[in-house]
């Protein structure tokens, strides 16, 4: 067994294509589950790196995907042509299981095609990525729904919105503005913040549905911030890298 010191996260290392094949296949399968019926993507090129900690590994993958045109006329909604996507995936492997932690896919910029994966990778924004990941995970774990809650919003993107959705959202937004003393400079900004607020309420409800504890999620003083704004202003990305000064590890002595 590794020592405790060894159990800490190691630095990123380049990984061989063989090592990346299984996490890339897992990311592809998860990606395909989120596509419309009849559509499917296949793996193109795969490159990436790995970071290990204890018995777990984190893979950071750069992948090209070929989205195949929908061929089943019974389910195809539109005639879609084949397209190439550049994707960044982060996949963890712990306790014998893979998990897709991040997904960021965008179409190949035709000008950049062939210029290398890293340069051509689209960046649709963190909100979009998190939304996709949450949606796909939610669909993967239907049994984790909190059956006692009455959803304000449809839990699946394909369900129709309740008739009074916007009325209820406007009322909640008004409550938020009053409770947290928010003022906005212009009508446009207020509209923009309300649209963020609505997206956040949808996101909060998904988080709620996936929580296995007793926590309640909903309106907070951060409800009119995009995820990107919230991360940039209030969180600390340096902690992820863990490259600070090494400290002495306290030895635990069991004392009955």
């Amino acid at each position, binding site marked *: 067994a590794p020592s405790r010191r060894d159990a800490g996260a190691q630095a990123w290392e380049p990984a061989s294509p063989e090592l990346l094949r299984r996490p890339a296949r897992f990311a592809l399968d998860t990606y395909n589950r989120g596509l419309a019926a009849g559509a499917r993507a296949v793996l193109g090129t795969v490159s990436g790196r790995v970071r290990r900690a204890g018995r777990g590994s984190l893979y950071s993958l750069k992948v090209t995907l070929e989205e195949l045109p929908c061929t089943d006329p019974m389910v195809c909604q539109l005639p879609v042509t084949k397209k190439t996507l550049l994707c960044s995936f982060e996949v963890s492997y712990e306790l014998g299981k893979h998990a897709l932690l991040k997904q960021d896919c965008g179409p190949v910029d035709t000008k950049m095609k062939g210029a290398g994966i890293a340069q051509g990778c689209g960046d649709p924004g963190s909100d979009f990525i998190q939304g996709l990941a949450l949606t796909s995970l939610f669909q993967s774990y239907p049994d984790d729904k909190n059956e006692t809650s009455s959803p304000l919003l449809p839990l699946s993107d394909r369900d129709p919105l309740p008739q009074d959705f916007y009325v209820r959202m406007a009322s909640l937004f008004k409550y938020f503005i009053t409770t947290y003393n928010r003022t906005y400079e212009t009508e446009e900004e207020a509209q923009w913040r309300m649209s963020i607020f609505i997206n*956040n309420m949808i996101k909060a409800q998904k988080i709620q549905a*996936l929580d*296995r504890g007793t*926590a309640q999620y909903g309106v907070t003083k951060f409800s009119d911030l995009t995820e990107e704004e919230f*991360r940039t202003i209030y969180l600390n990305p340096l902690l992820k890298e863990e*490259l*600070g*000064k090494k400290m002495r590890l306290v030895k635990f002595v069991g004392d009955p």
Partner: protein
Amino acid sequence: APPEWDWRKKGAVTKVKNQGMCGSCWAFSVTGNVEGQWFLKRGDLLSLSEQELVDCDTVDKACMGGLPSNAYSAIETLGGLETEDDYSYSGHLQTCSFSAQKVKVYINDSVELSHNEQELAAWLAKNGPISIAINAFGMQFYRHGISHPLRPLCSRWFIDHAVLLVGYGNRSDVPFWAIKNSWGTDWGEEGYYYLHRGSGACGVNVMASSAVVN
């Protein structure tokens, strides 16, 4: 570890603070730990200065983030911490105006703690509040209760928020950590966050540390 523990009830924890629009959670986590260590060793609960760390810890990046391990070193190098009253919080980077004459608290060392949550609980009960860092997934919308996100959603690989463990226990048989946050009392349960204990939720066990006061 005793079945439950709460340093708030024993006077080792100052009131919840507010980092404002600044990524200085690392400074609040470390001062919270030092406040507890000083209280336990010297008997005085002093509210200590985060702004001193924001301005004068040149290894860390002020409102852009920092690491507790570097902050302990900075406190040792500077010679200690001033109080909140003497070096008050502004929430943005200023020129360092640290004064050795105003130092009220010092530390002698810092240590990394176990990744085992049972051992962390035992250490906490014996030695005081612990500086930790977690994945802040869901905290933007957290209101109350014990948070226990699905493991893939709140991975230990994406640690991005430093906070302070001040106690633990069970609520209706659900084991929790009581966590002091630095987003003001109008967030969470009067500024506190409750996270599931025993499952490594959100990486609660991966970056635990403490200052040492002799």
